């Protein structure tokens, strides 16, 4: 009696106890469901040790930890500078001060405009408060606002047709509903304004709304795509396997494993985001694949035997392959822990745990059900029968030389395709057009401003930020930045100091420069600061110790390469032109622009570890080092080809792609495990290679095809998500599995036979 037979016997002997155990385990896991939360914080995607994130925290600590919501106001065509429009804009600005957790509100009407008037320097809101807007005031506004560097492309569109109201809020810790409060308030204001000012159009964007959309996308995926995938998986099972008993048992197992996975996420305290909410779908399709293997083996045995002995044999022969396949898959998912981005790590963990639960359920529930089929009943049918599989085997073997040429050719093309791949990650563009947030964001970017930004925080080596040399360097850098492609607006204190210096000399244009002494600059700034109203202070631009100041460039970019290029060029420019005054580019835009590259670097290590572990398991399982090495071929080629095709067609990948290679390696190895274990068993029985191959096709071919189709459909459904990370994970994984199927059926036999001949 083999070990597999003994375990099978034990499973059958203690079936009732095991069933109860699985049920209790299931109940314990789904008790975690009430703890499930949807995360609405973009920062969730940045790991604690991420250098870009640390830089963001440094910046937030020095200035203000606030997030901006931008509301774009488009007045009716041709009325932008009419008194009634400005009156409306002023009221909207005032209303915005009522936003929960508001730190400051900036718009063209409350902009602190300054100018000299005789011996006085007036610093006042561009539009006076508390009085009706007269035609004269409107004319003055129309004269000044479109010419102000600090307003244009930020709070007023370059064409003067749209306004921006920028609302900074400080989200408190420990108040999970804070974002919702802010968004609800602003939605209410928008509705009120729309009613009071017919003909006005409003659009809003920013990270508060983006965070909520993140949670919304997660909820949408969990509620629509996961059930859709479930229906698809069951439909496929029913299509391929004509056994109601097996399909119903599989439905229960797959459903339970999916729910248990959500439960695990609840217990682990994981906040589901758009990146993780969909991951139980992976457990669903992978567990259904195990069910397929088990059921097909049972049906094969049923052709010659009654249900009970057939079940015993099916379980005994599948115990090792299904266990090895599931463990390697789990290792692939655990490999995601090498990623920097927490949602990817969390996805790996919950899927790995869900898979192990699914494995236990398959071994306990399925045999229990299958063994109880009526003795003597006819064997169920499958869509793909032995004859078809053997026919396929003969055709593949007859054409094997073709595949040995076709595959390397495709790989060569793929490598070319991979060189074309670009990285594009942007928190705003992760959502597709089905979300209002994305549509609004695109509109704001098109009509008003650039929503990406780079923040350069300069620290003075000694003295204070008001050192003339330091400020002149920053001024030169600011001027350089303004000239760069994609940059629409730059905010820098040097503009304020220059303006104040000019005003101090009766607005003499020649004095529009940094003053010659540190004291003069400090005092000019102090004068300006004393003139500011509450909330509109300089603490968002200069730190309280007066040692750091930041320059922010607002950027209208279509691709994150724009940001990476600008960040790189800015750093090079500073090194060459202002070597004493340098800063690195920081902020969320650049952190996301670099997130794929960063995760890729780490996942490369993860892939290496997973590769080594899985290969080791394969070698141990197959008890054959050479076979283990050969098995790598059909498992590495698919990812190569998938990324190659992607590079040729879609070109850009995002954060989701970084985990695909490692994750799919664990998945696609399954088919190879099943294939090689059967093939080697046949060979050990003395069958010649060709015959062993034909048998292997007839025994596991159908299972490999059916499970691959189920996986492709499942991950393709994941790609229907409105969130780009899921789209890329789903689509790329489906393509990899498709290529893996081809590699297992076409390439692996050819390579095996070639290897047999040479050895």
């Amino acid at each position, binding site marked *: 009696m083999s070990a597999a037979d003994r375990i099978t016997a034990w499973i059958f002997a203690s079936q009732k106890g095991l069933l109860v155990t699985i049920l209790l385990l299931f109940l314990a896991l789904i008790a975690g469901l009430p703890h499930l939360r949807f995360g609405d914080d973009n920062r969730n995607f940045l790991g604690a040790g991420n250098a870009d994130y640390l830089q963001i925290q440094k910046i937030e600590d020095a200035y203000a930890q606030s997030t901006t919501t931008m509301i774009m106001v488009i007045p009716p065509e041709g009325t932008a500078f009419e008194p009634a429009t400005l009156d409306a804009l002023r009221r909207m600005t005032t209303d915005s001060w009522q936003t929960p957790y508001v730190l400051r509100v900036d718009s063209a009407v409350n902009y602190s405009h300054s100018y000299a008037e005789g011996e006085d320097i007036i610093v006042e809101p561009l539009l006076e408060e508390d009085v009706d807007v007269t035609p004269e005031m409107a004319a003055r506004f129309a004269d000044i606002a479109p010419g102000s560097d600090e307003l244009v492309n930020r709070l007023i569109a370059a064409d003067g047709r749209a306004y921006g109201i920028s609302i900074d809020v400080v989200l408190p810790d420990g108040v999970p509903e804070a974002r919702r409060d802010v968004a609800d308030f602003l939605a209410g204001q928008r509705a009120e304004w729309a009613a009071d000012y017919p003909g006005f159009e409003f659009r809003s964007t920013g990270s508060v709304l983006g965070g909520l959309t993140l949670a919304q996308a997660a909820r949408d995926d969990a509620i629509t795509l996961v059930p859709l995938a479930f229906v698809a998986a069951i439909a496929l099972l029913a299509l391929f396997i004509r056994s109601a008993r097996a399909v119903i048992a599989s439905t229960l197992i797959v459903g339970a494993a999916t729910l248990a996975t959500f439960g695990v996420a609840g217990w682990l305290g994981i906040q589901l985001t758009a990146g993780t909410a969909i991951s139980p779908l992976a457990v669903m399709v992978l567990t259904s694949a195990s069910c397929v293997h088990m059921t097909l083996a049972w049906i094969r045995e049923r052709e010659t035997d009654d249900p009970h002995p057939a079940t015993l044999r099916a379980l005994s022969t599948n115990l090792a392959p299904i266990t090895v396949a599931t463990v390697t898959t789990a290792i692939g998912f655990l490999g995601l822990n090498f990623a920097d981005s927490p949602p990817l790590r969390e996805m790996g963990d919950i899927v790995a745990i869900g898979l192990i639960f699914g494995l236990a359920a398959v071994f306990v529930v399925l045999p229990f059900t299958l063994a109880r089929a009526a003795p003597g009943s006819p064997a169920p049918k499958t869509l793909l029968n032995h004859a078809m599989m053997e026919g396929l085997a003969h055709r593949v073997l007859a054409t094997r030389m073709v595949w040995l040429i076709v595959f390397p050719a495709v790989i060569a093309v793929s490598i070319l395709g991979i060189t074309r791949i670009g990285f594009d990650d942007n928190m705003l563009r992760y959502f597709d057009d089905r979300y209002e947030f994305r549509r609004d964001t695109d509109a704001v970017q098109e009509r008003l401003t650039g929503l990406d930004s780079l923040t350069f925080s300069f620290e003075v080596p000694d003295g204070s930020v008001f050192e003339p040399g330091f400020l002149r360097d920053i001024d030169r850098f600011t001027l350089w930045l303004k000239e760069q492609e994609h940059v629409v607006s730059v905010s820098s204190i040097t503009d304020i100091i220059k303006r104040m210096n000019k005003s*101090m000399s009766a607005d003499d244009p020649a004095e529009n420069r940094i003053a010659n002494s540190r004291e003069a600059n400090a*005092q000019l700034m102090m004068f300006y600061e004393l003139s500011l109203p509450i909330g509109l202070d300089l603490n968002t631009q200069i730190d309280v110790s*007066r040692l750091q100041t930041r320059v922010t460039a607002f950027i209208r970019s279509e691709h994150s390469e724009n940001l990476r290029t600008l960040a790189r060029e800015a750093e090079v420019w500073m090194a060459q032109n202002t070597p004493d005054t340098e800063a690195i580019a920081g902020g969320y835009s650049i952190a996301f622009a670099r997130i794929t590259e960063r995760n890729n670097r780490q996942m490369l290590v993860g892939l290496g570890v997973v590769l080594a572990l899985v290969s080791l398991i394969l070698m141990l399982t197959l008890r054959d080092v050479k076979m283990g090495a050969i098995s790598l071929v059909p498992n590495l080629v698919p990812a190569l080809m998938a990324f190659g095709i992607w590079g040729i067609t879609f070109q850009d990948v995002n954060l989701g792609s970084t985990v695909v290679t490692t994750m799919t390696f664990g998945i696609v190895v399954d088919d190879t495990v099943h294939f090689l274990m059967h093939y080697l068993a046949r060979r050990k029985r003395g069958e010649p290679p060709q015959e062993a191959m034909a048998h292997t096709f007839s025994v596991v071919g159908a299972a490999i095809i059916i499970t691959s189709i189920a996986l492709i459909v499942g991950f393709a459904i994941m790609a229907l998500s409105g969130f780009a990370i899921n789209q890329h994970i789903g689509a790329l994984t489906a393509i990899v599995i498709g290529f893996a199927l081809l590699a297992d059926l076409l390439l692996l036999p050819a390579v095996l036979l070639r290897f047999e001949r040479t050895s």
Partner: protein
Amino acid sequence: MRFSGLLSAALAALLFVSPALAETAEEKGYRISRQSADTETGFRDMSVEGEMILYSARGSTSTRRFTSRTVENDDNQGSRSLLIFDWPGDIRNTALLTHSFDSARDDQWLYLPAVRKVRRISSSGRSGAFVGSEFAYEDMLDQNVDEFTHVWQRTEPCPNAPGACDVIDRQSKNSSSYSLQRVWIDQTDNRTRVIQYFDRRGAHLKTLTISDYQKYNDAYWRPALMDMTNHLTGKRTELKWSNYRFDTGVNPTEFTPNALRNIR
């Protein structure tokens, strides 16, 4: 007998409590605020040194130092004050002159020694962060009682001192950057102990706690420490007062924009 006893007791009670019964919450609030203000004025002139320590949300600090001189106008209507900075070094000798009036908006000028110019500060602003701190300029001063409506709320133990405090809500009669200020005034010596500031939307934005009071010249209570915490940003500013001096014989006419250039 029994009846008349009851009546006289009732009469006595009525007489005893009648001032309280007759006084509305507004009147009581005003009366207490007025008493508190009166303990602080009448000093003619005063000088004091201030040191601000600004704390970021994560605890890094920065310091500002200045000398403040105040002189009450001869007609006792308002005052003139001069704030001369000492630290940070690049604003040393920068001087802020304020003329405050009981019934009109204050006038302010700044002397910038580096460019040797005096410039008036336009009146629309001034409510922002004072030299980057959590204080607005107005938060550091005693408020003119008549600029506010006062509503007495309740009596309760002082939050940061022994004894009982009256809690009074005051609202500016003019436009203000705060929707409401809630003031705790102790009953022992009518000193302001705590002020909570509520922003435009009525949220509790800042809290000022005032402590280490000392009596000068047997007449004026003055604190040594004012601590302002911003609940939105988590930032905090400590303002330490030292070296109070009263009645040193300053002439209010020296506190003019033209005289600013000569001040050292």
